[in-house]
């Protein structure tokens, strides 16, 4: 279990190796990488700046990770989120989950991203032709989160509900 917030890029292969090195109990590794798109709502963007709340960011990511570990039999997981200036094509976020079998790794990776997007205090400001624009939160992200509350999570279902982001 690890959480990092950093300016620099990450190496997906190196991060997977970091989780699996020396272990033989891992049968499945899932990675999700978020990347800066070159367009937003139909217009091109030159890049974006990611701001965050130092301290709270790390504690929210750690609690999201702990929640995933409580729901699924994970052998290891890792979340890396970048901050500062990013250009189209740059990596933003990496989630890696490792488990004995693929179902838990797939489900936990999706859960981590859905929770991160609605709870972790990051804000994106896009640099476009008309200057800077703060990105609006999407209702679809709240919807994505809600399904983890109403559905039993596979493959081990929790008996408790998860607190909804405000």
């Amino acid at each position: 279990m690890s959480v990092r917030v950093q300016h620099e890029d990450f190496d997906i292969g190196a991060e997977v190796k970091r989780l699996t090195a020396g272990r033989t109990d891992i049968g499945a590794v899932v990675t999700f990488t978020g990347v800066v798109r070159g367009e937003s709502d139909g217009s091109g963007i030159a890049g974006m700046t990611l701001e965050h709340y130092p301290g709270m960011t790390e504690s929210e990511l750690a609690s999201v990770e702990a929640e995933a570990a409580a729901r699924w039999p994970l052998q290891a997981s890792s979340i890396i989120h970048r901050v500062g200036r990013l250009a189209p094509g740059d990596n933003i976020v990496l989630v890696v989950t490792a488990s004995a079998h693929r179902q838990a790794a797939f489900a936990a990776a999706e859960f981590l991203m859905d929770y991160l997007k609605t709870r972790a205090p990051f804000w994106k400001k896009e640099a476009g032709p008309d200057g800077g624009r703060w990105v609006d939160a999407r209702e679809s992200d709240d919807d994505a989160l809600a399904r983890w509350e109403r559905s039993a999570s596979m493959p081990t279902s929790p008996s408790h509900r998860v607190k909804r982001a405000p």
Partner: protein
Amino acid sequence: MPVKILYFAWVREKTGKAEEMVDLPAGVATVAELITWLKGRGPEYAEAFARAHVIRAAINQTHVQPTASLAGAREIAFFPPVTGG
């Protein structure tokens, strides 16, 4: 007792400051009451908190609702809905 108030993203831009120390006046006991009080401090605050319903808050680095009590708060943060990932 003074508390630290932090502002992020467009809330920070509109208030013109990232953080400040504030002595909470008597009668300001919840997040919603603090927002109402802040709005009276100047046009930049009134502008920052004009759409109070979209502003999120955290006390001591934990998400809270507008009805949350400020008792025990050392650090209070105001920010727009988060957009990471």
